[in-house]
């Protein structure tokens, strides 16, 4: 089925931060013009500066700007953008947005509205893929009343998870260990899901202990070609938020990779999937794997896959949206070396990962061989409380996992961010942890077996010396100012004006 290629020249990026910059870079390398949108607090942001054009779309809260389909389509029309890339988050998994783009004759760089919808409802998704022969975690696949759910719970067995049908990010999710706790957990999960997604529907899943969160990246074009690009290990999480990802997983061998890949393709084909997507699996200690959900968009952690496959996933997305064939076949996909990504967040790892906001006053980026930084900020930029705390992603490649780990340690020690707290010390501790180095971790690792103490070398006495020397120097300089302007108590206004004239003229 050869379709007419869709030509487009100008891409609107309906997002902000590092992913908007990432997409703008891909577009520029393809000779496409780019349109950025920004809220009040993002006027100075890097994505605005890197785009060909930029348009203001409203106040900081996402509901009033980045989630406003009408405003974004209006900018697309005013700027003459003929394609939209949604990035991740915000409108990326909203079938109505994808549909609205198509209705306006604007290419949506992502899957069809139907595929987004089919995978967006977790219960429908489970049922759909199960029918296609994909293994799912034992649980409930239809909408049930509370009493029916309680009966099902006994059938499935404890411990189990209550999950929101519209869910994501751990919201509306409850672990239940005993039958007597079921009713209370059910009600609170429904309330949370209702508050978060406007939909209180929940379903049950057997809790698989010691499981790992491993996902398969797939690409599908409009010519019926679907390929998988190996896996990403995402078990380093805290409160269901991924903190570090790697590819390949130290837990996955070639045989398992192939089996998971094939199953991922089945899941994608079950919804006639097109463009880039990710199938998340839970893998138990015996290497049984179960479909969790499909993310119908670009993932935050796509760079680790790019590093080990040498494929630019964002460019492939654009290629697919233009109606062209994938640039590679499954046989041409080879996993080379190992890549690790650290999410650099504005949060304090020593204080319960409390979010930290403010202006980045200074920043030194790590560079050199095997190091990639996908950043959305530079010195002078602000981290506001309105959006997620992701400052940047530091990705390192190595010929082996060991080399990638050592390189990441080196890069982390070069990366300096001043003005707010970051989780860089968390990553440094993690990379010193014997269990992590040994690949011995599951999704409970960070919360249950990891502490910030670690065996890292602290040098408080050096910090003391440096601060003293800086203070001493400042004191000396200030003494000179008092001295110079001193005794007579006057600074000539001519002198001030004169200095300034010299500077600006």
């Amino acid at each position: 089925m050869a379709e007419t290629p869709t030509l487009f020249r100008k891409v609107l990026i309906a997002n902000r931060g590092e992913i908007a910059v990432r997409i703008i870079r891909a577009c520029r390398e393809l000779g496409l013009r780019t349109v950025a949108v920004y809220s009040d607090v993002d006027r100075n942001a890097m994505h605005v500066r890197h785009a060909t054009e930029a348009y203001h779309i409203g106040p900081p809260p996402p509901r009033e700007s980045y989630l406003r389909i009408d405003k974004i389509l209006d900018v697309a029309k005013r700027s003459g953008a003929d394609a939209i890339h949604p990035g991740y988050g915000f409108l990326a998994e909203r079938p109505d947005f994808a549909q609205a783009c198509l209705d306006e004759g604007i290419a949506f760089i992502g899957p069809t509205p139907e595929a987004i919808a089919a995978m967006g409802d977790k219960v429908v998704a489970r049922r759909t893929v199960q029918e296609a022969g994909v293994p799912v975690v034992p649980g409930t696949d239809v909408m049930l009343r509370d009493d029916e759910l309680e009966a099902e719970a006994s059938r499935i067995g404890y411990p189990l998870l209550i999950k929101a049908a519209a869910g994501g990010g751990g919201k509306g999710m409850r672990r239940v260990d005993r039958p007597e706790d079921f009713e209370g957990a059910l009600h609170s999960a429904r309330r949370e899901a209702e508050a978060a997604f406007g939909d209180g529907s929940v379903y049950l899943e057997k809790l698989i202990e010691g499981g790992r969160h491993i996902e398969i990246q797939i690409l599908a074009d409009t010519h019926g070609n679907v390929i998988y690009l190996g896996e990403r290990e995402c078990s380093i999480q805290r409160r269901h938020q991924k903190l570090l990802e790697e590819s390949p997983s130290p837990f996955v061998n070639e045989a398992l990779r192939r089996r998971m890949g094939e199953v991922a393709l089945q899941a994608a084909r079950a919804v006639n999937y097109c463009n880039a997507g990710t199938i998340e699996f839970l893998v138990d200690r015996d290497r049984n794997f179960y479909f969790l959900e499909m993310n119908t968009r670009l993932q935050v952690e796509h760079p680790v896959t790019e590093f080990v496959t040498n494929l630019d996933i964002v460019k492939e997305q654009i290629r697919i949206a233009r109606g062209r064939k994938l640039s590679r076949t499954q046989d041409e996909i080879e996993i080379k070396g190992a890549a690790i990504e650290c999410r650099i967040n504005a949060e304090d790892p020593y204080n319960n990962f409390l979010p930290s906001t403010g202006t980045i006053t200074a920043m030194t980026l790590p560079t050199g061989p095997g190091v990639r930084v996908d950043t959305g900020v530079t010195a002078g930029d602000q981290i506001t409380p309105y959006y997620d705390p992701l400052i940047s992603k530091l990705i390192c490649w190595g010929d082996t996992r060991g080399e990638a780990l050592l390189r990441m340690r080196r890069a982390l020690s070069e990366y300096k961010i001043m003005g707010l707290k970051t989780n860089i010390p968390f990553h440094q501790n993690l990379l010193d942890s014997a269990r992590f180095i040994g690949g011995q971790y599951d999704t409970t690792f960070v919360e249950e077996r990891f502490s910030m103490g670690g065996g890292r070398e602290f040098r408080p006495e050096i910090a003391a010396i440096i601060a003293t020397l800086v203070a001493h120097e400042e004191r000396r300089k200030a003494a000179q100012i008092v001295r110079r302007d001193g005794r007579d108590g006057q600074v000539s206004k001519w002198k001030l004006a004169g200095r300034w004239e010299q500077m600006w003229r």
Partner: protein
Amino acid sequence: MRYEVTVDGHTYQVEINEEGHITIDGQTVEVDFAQIGNSGLYSLLVDNESFEALVEPRENIWLVLLRGDLYEVDVVDERVRLLRARASLTVPESGEVTIRAPMPGLVVSVPVEMGQEVSKGDNLVILESMKMENELKAPRDGRIERINIKAGDSVERDQILVVIS
């Protein structure tokens, strides 16, 4: 505020209008300008087209690094232009020289006295105009022959302030 701005040998007439608009060689564009932190990095949106530049002052010009190219930009405002024009007038070697106000303003101070000997470059009058203090200097050596104003006076353009002989 109007400026004469010279880049690569071409002089643009740039006028900064009310917030958000600039007229350059007669064409009005919408601009949105922002400094990134305290660095020399700036973001400019011109009719929504986005530009990022590093800007630094050098003696008499501005250096603008834009899309890989370094531009040397000379920005002259009315005040500086008037002062420069005044300074370039030919001054007779001897005889009287009158110091006139290059623009309307307020006399801030007159740091010379009647009969005083002055050297070329000495300040004669400090005139506040366009919110800036401007030094009017002696165009050659001489003696203060006459002082028509005192601190606090308002003066008109071209009004004679001081005479040197």
